[in-house]
């Protein structure tokens, strides 16, 4: 990473940073939603096309909550 980029992770773990990047990849990467397109095969009674979006939402939600607890455990936030 070039030196001029600000360090975002004062005390934030690398795992959380990677999780945030993973969030962006699963939400934005076109091949993933192309694969889910029109796929009505159910998993746990939920069609895969819908399950894809639910999984993305759960992943992002989990990452933000985990980041907060990670920051709290490190004393970054009270």
């Amino acid at each position: 990473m070039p030196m001029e980029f600000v360090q975002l992770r004062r005390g934030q773990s690398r795992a959380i940073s990677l999780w945030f990047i993973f969030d962006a990849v699963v939400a934005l990467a076109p091949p993933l939603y192309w694969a889910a397109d029109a796929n009505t095969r159910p998993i746990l009674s939920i069609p895969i096309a819908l399950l894809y979006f639910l999984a993305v939402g759960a992943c992002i939600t989990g990452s933000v909550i985990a980041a907060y607890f990670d920051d709290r455990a490190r004393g970054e936030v009270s």
Partner: protein
Amino acid sequence: MAITFGLLLVFFIAVIWILQRTGIRDTSFTDYAVAGRSFGARYQAMSFLNTWYPGSMFTAFGALAATTGVMSFYVVSYSLLTVVLMYVMARTVWIWGKRFDLHTQPDLFALRYNSRHIRTIAAIIGIISGVPWLVLGMQALGDLFHFMSLGYLPFSVSVIIGVTVVAIRQIWTVRLGMRGVIVSDYFQGIVAYIGGSLILGGLIIWLVVAKDSTLSSLDPKMYAIPGLSSKQGPLYVFSLILTGTIGGWCWPYIFVRLFTADGVGSLKKSAALAVPLSFVFGTLLLIFGMLASALPSVVAQPNDAWFLVAQEAGGHLLLGLAGVVLLAASMGHTDGNIQAYGAQIATDIIGNYTKLDQTRLIVIAKVGMLLITILASWLACLTLPALFSLAVLAYQGIIQLAVPQFFGIFWRRGNKQGAIAGMVCGFATAVFLELVFPGYLPWAWGLTSGAVALVVNGCVYVGLAYLLPQTESERLRVAGLFKMVQEPPPIRTDSVSLTTSYLR
């Protein structure tokens, strides 16, 4: 009609009662514009949600889910990703805001780029782009009052009533400033997103049990996501999610939430509180819309799915509660808009070129809010066929603030020349492309005009950052800003006025 209007009246009186109890404490412009940076995580979370999700979520996105199906979930993806962005930039923005007494998004631009004019440019782009959406939000209340009258009131009269109600509400926005907005957002947010989610859950159960509408019984077309062979293009959904995520923080009324918290910890905790609520609410709303598509009445009027299903499932009582939920969501969004624009008129436009004391800043912000309310109310009562197209155009334009905003927060090298030139080029490109290719660009695999303009904007910004290196004094100043973020936040820091050279 007595039940539906009675419920709306009770809710409205409750909001006014809460506002009256809040009291006025605008001893300084910081108190008035960012509530003295005094709110904790729960208030921050609800305030963010109440501003992020307007009342039209229930109508426009309910309709989108009922007509296009699972593709509508892009709104959930970007609404959640935008909270990740909030989490990542919380520390930098809050610390700069506290240390330099920033009140608005253009204030931050001025600090980061050491430029007086960038502040005005960003403020004008924000206000011009926001007014069409403000007008649309007011007009949406016309639908609400039309349904609450059980169809007795003509739509034109309903719009006037809706505009009048929301304009009366602004009396307290003007009087109390940001503190009033956030306190009422807390109550309105609970009603709109927690109450709304409970109603949505109940309606989903009703649709499954009473109407036999299930995920497996829906038309397979409801599970289509624009892909390689789609009309829109393979990158259409990518473009919607990307521009939605970064574009959200370009709206002045969203960005200012970062300045109202009492600390970085509250901001981060508010993100952790808001994200599950946002996920649950968004998911329930869109699944509700998809299942409601099985009803003939919704097929005929998809925009009214929220009201039609509520009335069919629970009669006038549930219809009234659905109206209260939509009114709560609409008021939060409108209040936040008007408050932010008033503050920008005072500090970023008039105050940017005239020395104003705290009292005058507050007075000008109040007058600005009043003028914006009158202008938007007047426009909302007119028939403006091009308004929605104008609003889409405005959105593609305002997201061009993202380049100087995010590069400025995360990259030291950017300069004011690149920031201004990039924004202007990006805005012009977005407007041109949206006028020529409304909606999406078939030759760009479905990218929207705003997304293509962001590339142009980013190239100009980065190109000028390397072509016109910062002077040594500017490099040191920017380095100092970033160094400040890495240090532990002070327990108590008295805010100082902008110490950058452009004001000195």
